[in-house]
């Protein structure tokens, strides 16, 4: 019997398949379409300290083999999450990973502090694709100093597993991963969306309400696989890989590039049962190839 069990830092997962933040809500929308308990873990959409109303529409548009989104982190805020969403999520018998973001280091730290000790939260994921309003709007995830300092601040308030989710919109993701590791992150997740734009030629204006957005889906997959491959060579931390995973073969590419777990985002919109299908597909692949333990595949694409 092949085992899909995997481990990312202290976190034991029954399968390596997670939901990508922001694409699966708080899970309830998909509950009638699949058995949520078959997920390796549920990464919920990013929450912030206070509610956020999000960006003006249109918020998304399809692009060749992908899509652009500019949701603007619409979410009901920490208080609502703790009162209304967390109690429901605690009843699910799968690891819950909470994605957080803020406009200042203090906001991230306050979130970590409020969540420390809450039962049922298996890990925190830092969404680093957010502008730091105190530093002129530069993204936390694009500056080594900002990123290192932010991870350190959160680390001081959060004793559980800490995931740093990197943005690919930088010259070299590896430097940023090192900064996250030095700050105390336990796991690296990659990639978040790649910035892009579509012009509405009839209006002669950017199509999205926010003007630009983040690209996801199969179009970004080769970029994401390369980043995971590079991270695996450069850092010791476990990696959660994502970007355009639609099927078992896509997931295998990320695992062989070095991911100990993978997340599905845009794929859920196309086929809500993508994760259950890949879970079955991975098992079949391993059994056919005589692989007993998923770890035999992690990083298999690298020469030893």
């Amino acid at each position, binding site marked *: 019997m092949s085992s899909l069990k995997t481990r990312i830092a202290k976190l034991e997962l029954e399968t390596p398949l997670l939901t990508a933040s922001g694409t699966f809500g708080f899970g309830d929308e998909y509950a009638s379409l699949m058995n949520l308990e078959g997920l390796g873990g549920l990464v919920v959409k990013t929450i912030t300290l206070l509610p956020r109303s999000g960006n003006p*529409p249109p*918020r*998304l548009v399809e692009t060749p083999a992908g899509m652009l989104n500019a949701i603007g982190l619409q979410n009901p805020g920490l208080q609502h999450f703790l009162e209304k969403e967390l109690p429901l999520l605690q009843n699910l018998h799968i690891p819950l990973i909470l994605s957080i973001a803020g406009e200042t280091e203090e906001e991230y730290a306050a979130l970590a502090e409020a969540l420390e000790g809450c039962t049922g939260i298996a890990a925190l994921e830092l969404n680093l694709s957010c502008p730091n309003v105190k530093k002129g709007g530069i993204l936390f995830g694009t500056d080594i100093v900002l990123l290192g300092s932010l991870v350190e601040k959160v680390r001081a308030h959060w004793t559980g597993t800490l995931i740093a989710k990197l943005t690919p919109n930088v010259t070299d993701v590896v430097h940023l991963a090192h900064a996250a590791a030095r700050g105390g992150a336990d796991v690296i997740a990659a990639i978040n969306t790649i910035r892009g734009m579509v012009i509405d030629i009839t209006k002669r204006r950017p199509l999205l309400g926010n003007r630009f957005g983040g690209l996801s889906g199969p179009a970004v997959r080769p970029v994401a696989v390369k980043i995971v491959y590079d991270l695996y060579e450069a850092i010791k931390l476990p990696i959660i890989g994502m970007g355009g995973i639609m099927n078992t073969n896509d997931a295998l590419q990320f695992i062989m590039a070095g991911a100990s777990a993978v997340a599905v985002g845009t794929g859920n919109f196309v086929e809500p049962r993508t994760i259950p299908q890949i879970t079955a597909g991975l098992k079949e692949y391993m059994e056919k190839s005589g692989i007993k333990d998923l770890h035999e595949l992690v990083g298999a694409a690298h020469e030893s």
Partner: protein
Amino acid sequence: MKQCQALVQEINEVSSYFYCLTLEEPYLAQTAQPGQFLHLRVGNGIAPLLRRPFSVAGTSPATGTIRLLFRRVGAGTELLSCLRKGDWLDCLGPLGTPFSAVGKDPAVLLAGGAGVAPLLFLGESMLNAGKNVHLFYGAADAKALLPVDRFLSPGVLIHFATEDGSVGEHGNLSDVFKLALDKGLAPGELFACGPLPLLRVLANENRRWVLPMQVSLEENMACGVGACQGCAVLIKKDGETLYKRVCREGPVFNSSEVVW
């Protein structure tokens, strides 16, 4: 709401670029309400990638069939138009919040272009509930006009409007409707669906008519089930403005609550 594999029973081009698609899927046929939509996987590959939303244009619970009317405008609807009897179509549905009939008789349906689809379903169900129903239906010219009477039982009063005057009244839908009001039509409530500029004009005029008015809105969609927040429209309620999801709280909204 479920994910279903529906069997294509019939598909035909009913007017230029307009297709009528009849699907066999008993669960959808028995549960879909007027105003709700299906989110369709139009291809098997990654182009087009996302599902496409289409309003339910009618159901026949007894035979377990459901009808969609769609206009071919791009790659997704092109693929749909190539379906053949016996093909399978992956559907999520029924999705969204339906129309609610609350007001007085007669109900007036205001449809522009492809917006007629959900209103045909609504008209039919109101007729069955014993209501008096008027349908004002506008298009650019005769070629673009659907033979709507084919999709409605006798009893709904149909008023056509074409911008070139080739069929029905000459002019755009809102002008033709205003003319009918001047001649004494006294609607109990309004239901509108169509291009945004038309809905804006109607919502604006309704500030004078002050009739209960529901509109069915469109926005680009990814998940279709409320998970991604991608289909937001600005709504005002109790002095506050906030974004609501077309796929969940919508597509039907009270016209007075939409920030036009």
